[in-house]
């Protein structure tokens, strides 16, 4: 009897393995639905990016479907988690293209994962709208690759412009040890000269490090007039606290990586007085009514917060813009990828959450300097600074 059970068990194991290999079949509810792929870092260290991006994309798809879809076709979002891992992203991209037959892909959330699938989408000729910031994604131009996130170039320019006005000439730089920090550091170094700024000390920190007083001490001893910290939560919050603890009085600038309510929560009163560039979404209410983006922002915030019962973040906006841009390009394309790509490239004056998009054959990011505004944290709130 026991032996028979054993055989049964063995058979079960094989059955389960076969099922896992074959994949649990997904139900597709409409034969002529337009399938759109999504690749986001939903779990893993960058989930603060992927999670709101996924939610924003799904929100737009739902909204469009409620109005009857595009050209009579309903949209279906097929979203996979990249976990921020390039190898997984490559596999997932192939899955979307060959198995799910998507018309276009939105995402990924990070620069390395995007770069890993650029060869894939170029070869298979599938439009890709990335939500990552790295400048290498769209420079040099690749026909099928677009992105909606603002470049680090613009963020650094915004910071340096502000510094110029304050007559700051010497700065210390503290960057996080990942692709975002690296890219930021590259830009900070590259643009320093033209703005007449000298970087007197550059240090780095790990994403999960608990104390940066050593790095700050080294920076302080080089006597800069301001410090720029480039990273994403929680590191910059620790640094803000360290700066407060060490009684460092010179201005602290952060990157748009901390442009979220989470930073305020983590840094507490240590956030007071910090300068940073951010997309307009954080200061929507302070924008003049004449600002083109205001109505789009208000709508996004209302919709998102009503649906998900949690505050928005600028990062989700990248996917929101991407999906809306794609929706526009889908109109009249009849599901032809080439037409979708061409349509995307022609989009001009599209007002999104991240800025106003003007694509062209030579510009697949489409954003200008209006994508960023400088804010200062005052009394636990983001205060829009006049340009």
């Amino acid at each position, binding site marked *: 009897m026991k032996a028979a059970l054993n055989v049964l068990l063995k058979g079960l194991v094989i059955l389960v393995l076969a099922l896992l290999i074959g994949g649990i079949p997904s139900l597709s509810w409409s034969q002529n639905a337009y399938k759109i792929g999504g690749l986001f870092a939903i779990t893993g260290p960058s989930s603060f990016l992927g999670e709101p991006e996924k939610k924003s994309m799904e929100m737009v798809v739902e909204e469009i479907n409620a109005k009857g879809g595009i050209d009579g076709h309903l949209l279906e979002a097929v979203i996979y988690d990249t976990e921020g891992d390039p190898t997984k992203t490559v596999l997932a991209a192939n899955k979307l293209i060959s198995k799910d037959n998507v018309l276009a892909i939105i995402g990924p959330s990070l620069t390395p994962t995007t770069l890993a699938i650029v060869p894939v989408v170029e070869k298979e000729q599938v439009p890709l709208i990335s939500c990552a910031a790295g400048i290498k994604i769209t420079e040099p131009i690749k026909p099928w690759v677009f992105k909606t996130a603002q470049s680090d170039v613009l963020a650094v320019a915004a910071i340096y412009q502000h510094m110029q006005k304050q007559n700051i000439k010497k700065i210390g730089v503290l960057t996080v040890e990942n692709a975002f920090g690296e890219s930021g550091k590259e830009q900070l170094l590259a643009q320093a000269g033209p703005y007449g700024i000298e970087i007197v000390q550059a*240090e780095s920190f790990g994403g999960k490090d608990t104390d940066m007083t*050593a790095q700050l001490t*080294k920076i302080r001893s080089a006597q800069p007039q301001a410090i720029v910290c480039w990273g994403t939560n*929680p590191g910059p919050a620790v640094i803000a606290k360290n700066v407060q603890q060490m009684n460092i009085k010179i201005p602290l600038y952060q990157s748009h990586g901390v442009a979220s309510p*989470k930073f305020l929560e983590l840094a507490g009163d240590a956030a007071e007085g910090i300068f940073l560039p951010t997309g307009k979404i954080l200061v929507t209410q302070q924008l003049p009514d004449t600002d083109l983006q205001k109505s789009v922002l208000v709508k996004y915030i209302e919709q998102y917060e009503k649906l998900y019962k949690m505050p928005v973040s600028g990062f989700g906006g990248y996917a929101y813009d991407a999906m809306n841009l794609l929706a526009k390009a889908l109109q009249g394309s009849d599901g032809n990828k080439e037409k979708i790509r061409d349509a995307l490239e022609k989009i001009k004056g599209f007002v999104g959450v991240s800025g106003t998009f003007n694509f062209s054959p030579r510009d697949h990011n489409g954003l200008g300097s209006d994508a960023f505004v400088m804010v200062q944290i005052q009394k636990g709130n983001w205060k829009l600074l006049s340009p």
Partner: protein
Amino acid sequence: MQEFLQYLFSGVTNGAIYAVIALGFTMLYNATGLINFAQGEFVMLGALSMITLWKGLQLPLPAAFLLTVAVVALVGLLLERLAIRTVRKPHPIVLVIITIGASILLRGIAMLVWGKDAHSAPSFSRLAPIEIAGATLLPQSLWILGVVLAIVIGLQIFHRKTMTGKAMEACAISKRAASLLGIPSERMVLLAFALSAGMGSIGGVLIAPITMSSYDMGMMLGLKGFCAAMLGGLGSSWGAVFGGMMLGILEAMAVGFFSSDLRDAVAFFVLLLILYARPSGLLGVKAVQRF
């Protein structure tokens, strides 16, 4: 001078964190000869549970503290009972993978319960940073050091004076001989797991105010804490404290006098150095070789 002192204090802050984690490793190794790769996750669970109970549910500090430790100790208990004890052939590599699997499992659960964002906790005492000769030190660091010392002394007393403690040490020396003498060795191992988990959680509770706690904070801390334990000597509680402090200070000095880029590598360089030069660690007594 001010800089050197600040580096020292920075080292002390991180060092105290490593010390408390190293203690957990040492404690378990002392009693069972096992290395638990999930130790870092116990620290994470302690930190996050504390935040929920103290900040979220607004329980008074001592109650939240005790409840946190109890809950995480229970998790350690479950791990031993369900996973470790049921293994029929405890080859070390098998146990290593089980604890690795456990750490992934615990991280996954934490991600669901506490979400993917970081959480912060207020300090135990609302004191301003202490300033000495221009360098500042957070009072919370002193809290950590104080509790760590208390734990070490407590462990010494436990092992030398109480019956249970001596029984545990007997099991560590030889399980068979201990059971021949009537010591319930299985229960001792269970107790050791519960204790080391509890200790890890105490570490988490203490460091929550200084660091930002998230579901994935445990891995790097666990690895570095292990390096600290090896540095001090896996068999010695004082070694764990010493190793932790040394590692923290070495890291800070490396940042200060060399470059912050290779900061993480310091811990592993130290590990390799110790393994080659003096495997029993700086304060370790015997050359411990279980496998």
